[in-house]
């Protein structure tokens, strides 16, 4: 089977200015969005809010996630604390557009409550269903004492009753799960009646509410950037050694092109930057480099075979001869990634999306850009005057 007709003879070199202009336009758009709007940084880069929540009755994680989706936090990280059926860690951030984590923090906690109250159907002191009743599972010590005193208990009774109730909350889950526990707690009958009448047991409580810093902090960012710079230098040296220095430069420019185009797409479509997306970008660098080197390899061969020819002809011939391979490889890779994109679910979605953009543009740049740059540096490339 043949993907392409016999020996293609497409004049890619004459299209180089069009390709440069098109890519330039895309990258300029990217720069514009970068300046005006910036990246949509995810929790890996900004940090967020982490709560440890305890439920009266355990729920499947998918139900919690569904509730969080309703308030725009479907990408929250939800993890069960092992050894307990009722405790979970939830990590997320509410995109409030606030600059500081502290400001975002309050709203995130409020959003967590809203999700649990309105969309998971749990009741605590902040839900409408609570009415004016007292949430025994969440009320503070002071409020509870005040409540008892207001209801006519002596100060001493109020204090002991409060202490008993708070002690009951200090169990493994941090909640009183059943009114029967209160009835058997040794509280005065009057207090029990009072609690039954004017209080209720909240369905959940936040055991811990914390702001967590970014997973990719300054230190990691600096190190990663340095690693990338070293990687590029290493690549340049190898290509310089095996080919010519100018091939290395052209490969480098092509790589930058690919990364910038991918970043443009992330910027324009507000794709959230996460560690996954960074991994996808790195993968594409490897991929595109591979593509470019295969073509350069052919260019090197042809430079020997076509000693008398013009640079354009050598480059065109090389791109054409490798064209079916370029397309087949891109095709298989794209097939694999498309499957991930279509069937992989929410979690792999952005990863696969970034890869698709990268593969499409990586292939395009290998065909239209890498050799075009060699043409730009023609005299260094040929190592002879064009005769």
């Amino acid at each position: 089977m043949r993907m392409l007709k016999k020996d293609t003879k497409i004049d890619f070199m004459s299209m180089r200015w069009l390709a440069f202009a098109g890519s330039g336009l895309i990258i300029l758009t990217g720069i514009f969005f970068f300046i005006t709007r910036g990246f949509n940084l995810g929790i890996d880069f900004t940090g967020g809010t982490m709560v440890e929540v305890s439920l009266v009755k355990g729920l499947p994680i998918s139900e919690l996630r569904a509730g969080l989706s309703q308030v725009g936090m479907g990408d929250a990280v939800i993890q069960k604390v092992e050894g307990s059926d009722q405790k979970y860690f939830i990590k997320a951030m509410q995109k409030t557009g606030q600059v500081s984590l502290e400001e975002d923090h309050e709203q995130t906690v409020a959003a967590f409550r809203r999700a649990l109250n309105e969309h998971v159907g749990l009741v605590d002191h902040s839900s409408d269903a609570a009415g004016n009743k007292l949430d025994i599972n969440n009320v503070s010590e002071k409020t509870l004492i005040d409540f008892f005193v207001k209801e006519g208990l002596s100060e001493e009774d109020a204090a002991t009753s409060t202490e008993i109730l708070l002690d009951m909350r200090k169990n493994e889950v941090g909640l009183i799960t059943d009114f029967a526990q209160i009835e058997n707690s040794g509280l005065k009958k009057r207090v029990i009646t009072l609690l039954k009448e004017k209080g209720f047991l909240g369905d959940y409580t936040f055991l811990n509410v914390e702001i967590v810093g970014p997973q990719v902090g300054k230190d990691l960012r600096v190190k990663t950037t340095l690693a990338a710079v070293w990687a590029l230098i290493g690549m340049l040296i190898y290509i310089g050694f095996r080919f010519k220095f100018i091939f290395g430069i052209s490969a480098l420019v092509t790589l930058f092109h690919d990364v910038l185009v991918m970043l443009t797409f992330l910027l324009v479509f507000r794709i959230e930057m996460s560690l996954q997306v960074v991994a996808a970008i790195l993968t594409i660098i490897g991929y595109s480099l591979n593509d470019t080197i295969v073509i350069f390899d052919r260019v090197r061969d042809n430079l020997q075979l076509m000693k008398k020819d013009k640079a354009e002809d050598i480059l065109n011939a090389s791109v054409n001869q490798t064209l079916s391979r370029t397309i087949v490889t891109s095709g298989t890779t794209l097939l694999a990634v498309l499957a991930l994109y279509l069937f992989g679910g929410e979690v792999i979605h952005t990863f696969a999306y970034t890869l698709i953009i990268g593969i499409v543009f990586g292939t395009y740049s290998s065909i239209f850009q890498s050799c075009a740059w060699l043409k730009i540096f023609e005299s260094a490339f040929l190592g002879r005057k064009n005769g």
Partner: protein
Amino acid sequence: MSRSLLWKILLIVGVLAYSVFTFTPIGEKVKLGLDLKGGMHLVLEVQTKDAIKINTDQQVITLRGLLKDSSIGFESVRATAVNRFEVLGYSADMQQRVRDLLDDEFPDWSRSIDDQSAVLTLKPNIQQRMEDQAIEKAMETVRNRVDEYGVAEAAVQKVGIGSGNKILVLLPGVDDQKRVKELIKSTAMLEFKHVEAGPFQSEEEAKSNYGGTIPEDMTLYRSAGGRLGKALYVLQAATVVPGKDVRNAARSMDQYGGPAVSFTLNNQGQSKMEKYSAANIGQRMAIVLDNRIESVATIESVLNYNIQITGTFTVQEVDDLVLTLRSGALPASMKYLETRSIGPSLGADSIRKGIIASQIGLALVVLFMLIYYRGAGINSVVALLFNIIILLGVMVAFKATLTLPGIAGIVLTIGMSVDANVLIFERIKEELRAGKVPKMAIEQGFGKAFSTIMDANITTIITALFLFQFGTGPIKGFAVTLMIGIVASMFTAIFVSRVIFDLTYGRRKKLDKISI
């Protein structure tokens, strides 16, 4: 069948068998990341006051030295609180000179001074900055340690904002949780201290040496046992060279052939050590690790930068010590506030979807290769399956942690790995079109594609190597998977495919046509 072909087949079978042996049973051997399997949720508190105290102790020595250098007589210089120290007993006519000296050399400290004594207190904003730096440094150190231990997919995050001094560490399942926990927390606080007196058998004996109480600028230290026995030494409280000046630790052997740790000092540490040892030849110096004396040695000549700690270490202890020293000492000790196991961050549903998608991706690639390259397609599919087996085997051998994006990455590697096959097949087709006979075409196709494949893959491997060497955390993990994928695909495409071609066509005397 020729002998060389037989050897090749044996090699392939060997590699496959090794890989299968390495990763089975797959459920136990392949390490799954936090997203797929969960792990440990650790919260550590950094005792930032430690860092402040160490700094204050350093300043005490500095001031002593400066006073001596400018020949100002004094009774004592000593720390009185974590962030405060005082100089006592200079003569009244020296007050102005002391004041000038303090103003010039200790700008970070606020002072109160009279005609006999001066008290220096660390300025609050400076203290805050130092505490923040201690946390930053602690986080970096923890990350380095986790990395060096080989846990690629761990997360290290600060908890709280501003004055927060807690660190959250999420560790995917590792073999020896206890060891890793110790490793993370171990301060590896290494100090070189001047020995005043010792060894003593008991505290009383040491105290009586000084008439009942140990002087304020000295401290009693216990030895860690071993050749030093259970002895006590009186050391100068102030440190000669702190652990942060240590560079490049490595395992070595002591004169008795026991495991020891060698390391070098950075420029700052070297100059301190040179100055100190030159002035103290014939005296003794102690190497103190986490407040225990590991060794005591007499200074015989000026020491510069290559130093060895001997003690009674096991090999594992030495390795852990090297790892902690290399990842940097913690600026302060840490305490575990919480240790919990947590479940996977992805629901069973997400995991299932991810795996199904990966399988579909794989199936599509296989289908494409079979349709497009027909007979030769079978060849590449076999190579591809071998590739997956080797990939899994090597990943287990390298202790790589598998996450869902990691699985997606493997699928992608597979998509890319057929590239080597594609290159070869396209070359063979080209040769056939040029009129070569099939056997020749296969020969030349492999030959010509070889250098292309090498160049393309070596370039990528170099990139990955640099990412591995200089990157941290997830980047490192990524680089490992990438390298393994490339090497495995080169092996299968160049070697395995060739053997399959030879097996299929090699024995036929007359070969007119190949299916490609």
